[in-house]
């Protein structure tokens, strides 16, 4: 089975532009989360979606938005790009957002590298 897939892998945008990043979770997983990883730091939580509803949001401005589709894939949108938005954007999927005996492992994709110039 395929893992978490993200597209595009790399992209360059100009300040003020808009970007859309896409994520397909592992088959059977209904929860998708987005993380931003700035160079030299650990990932920071942006959003979580489950069953097409937002279930959690990190400390990010309203320029960041996301949605989840009926097939559980997800898009992350960032408007009015700033230089500081340059980062690796990681998508993660899990079966359910709440606790299970297995600990509900979260699996990550390889990320989308965004460079804002």
């Amino acid at each position: 089975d395929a893992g978490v897939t993200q597209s595009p892998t790399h992209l360059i945008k100009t300040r003020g532009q808009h970007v859309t990043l896409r994520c397909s979770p592992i088959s059977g997983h209904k929860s998708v989360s987005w993380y931003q990883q700035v160079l030299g730091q650990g990932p920071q939580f942006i959003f979580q979606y489950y069953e097409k509803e937002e279930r959690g949001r990190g400390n990010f401005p309203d320029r960041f938005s996301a949605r989840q589709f009926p097939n559980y894939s997800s898009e992350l949108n960032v408007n009015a790009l700033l230089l500081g938005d340059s980062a690796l954007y990681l998508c993660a999927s899990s079966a359910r957002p709440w606790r299970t005996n297995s600990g509900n492992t979260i699996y990550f994709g390889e990320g989308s590298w965004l460079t804002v110039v």
Partner: protein
Amino acid sequence: AQTVTQSQPEMSVQEAETVTLSCTYDTSESDYYLFWYKQPPSRQMILVIRQEAYKQQNATENRFSVNFQKAAKSFSLKISDSQLGDAAMYFCAYRSAKAGTASKLTFGTGTRLQVTL
């Protein structure tokens, strides 16, 4: 809010030797999960090991084991018989087990592990 601290920006170990990576965290919750993730140059986050806070027994996965000290809020990772393929960034992460919360992972800043011949 929970915080995760990794005080070792870089560590080095010789092949076949043992190394311990440190992690401390701060939380007011009693039930949670702790994780160690590995991030090689490919940038994909790979789960190394998981610990449930309600379990007193330290988790072990082949050459990887943890020393979980709940009262001290400490969660160190021991890598035995280090291999060249272990070279990567290692992130410690925390997730609440509270019902209804998002599957949000809080990461530390990471420890870069070098493995030398």
